[in-house]
């Protein structure tokens, strides 16, 4: 069961989604998304481009935020928009906390909608992928 619009309040935090990518997950994502850029799985390649390590794909963090929202709204709700910027790098085997806060609750064209501020947070508490989203709730 997902969230219900009546119970949502502006300012409320939604349940955090915890992620921590193994290198295997990054390879899996490469196949699932079709992004085979080597900085995401080949350590030597990543270092040669000046990176300290292989890095988590930005689009995977965007997809994590999509899961954060889907898992909250359930299948009677819908994720209507997900947007984020890639401001900081995340690395394999480090926690990525995916979070969201309700910023607005409203009705539009007969739909019960909620806007959220969403972000991924690294172990130092920095927001590496800040963004915003809109969901529809039952």
């Amino acid at each position, binding site marked *: 069961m997902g969230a219900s619009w009546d119970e949502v309040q502006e300012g409320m935090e939604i349940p955090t989604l915890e992620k921590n990518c193994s290198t295997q997950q990054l390879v899996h994502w490469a196949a699932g998304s079709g992004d085979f850029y080597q900085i995401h799985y080949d350590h030597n390649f990543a270092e040669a481009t000046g990176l300290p390590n292989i890095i988590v794909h930005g689009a995977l963090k965007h997809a994590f935020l999509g*899961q954060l*929202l*889907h898992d909250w709204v359930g299948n009677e709700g819908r994720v209507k928009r997900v947007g984020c*910027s890639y401001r900081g790098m995340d690395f394999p085997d480090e926690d990525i906390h995916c979070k969201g806060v309700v910023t607005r609750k409203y009705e539009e064209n007969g739909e019960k909608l909620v806007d959220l501020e969403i972000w991924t947070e690294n172990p130092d508490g920095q927001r590496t992928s800040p963004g915003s989203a809109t969901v529809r709730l039952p």
Partner: protein
Amino acid sequence: MSDETQESLITDEMRASIGRESEPTTLEVDKTSVRMFARSVGYTDPVYYDEAAAQAAGYRSLPAPPGYLGTPVFNPNKRSARPQGVLEPSRPLKRVLNGGTDIEYLTDICAGDILTSISAVASIEERKGRLGEMLITTTKTTYRNQDGEVVAIMTGTGIRY
């Protein structure tokens, strides 16, 4: 902020490319690709794996998870169209970063759908930041399904520096 002593990084060719639509790309959404995408993100909701669960939840078939907009149909004998965002600036820039992704969903996308996407550069800006000279290109891609309905609009931000 552009430096007055230097010419713009943005060439006339780049300016002329703004708004020009790409050739369409065909993308397939199928059950195997939905499962693979959902698994790679880490979803446990059965609607992304089990067709009966998806239909019980009201979907036509496995729904595409947020972020999944089909898989381009691969043809080794056809070179993919060069994205317009990679026209060379007036001075060479070495590195590329993905700056961000924004996707608006207008209706459900499910396994069995065949999508057609058309992209266009929406804006090109230059800035000086902590990375030095940066060129920021936003590209808007519209996805339609087999019935011609717009199902999603993706805005991607690319940074070259």
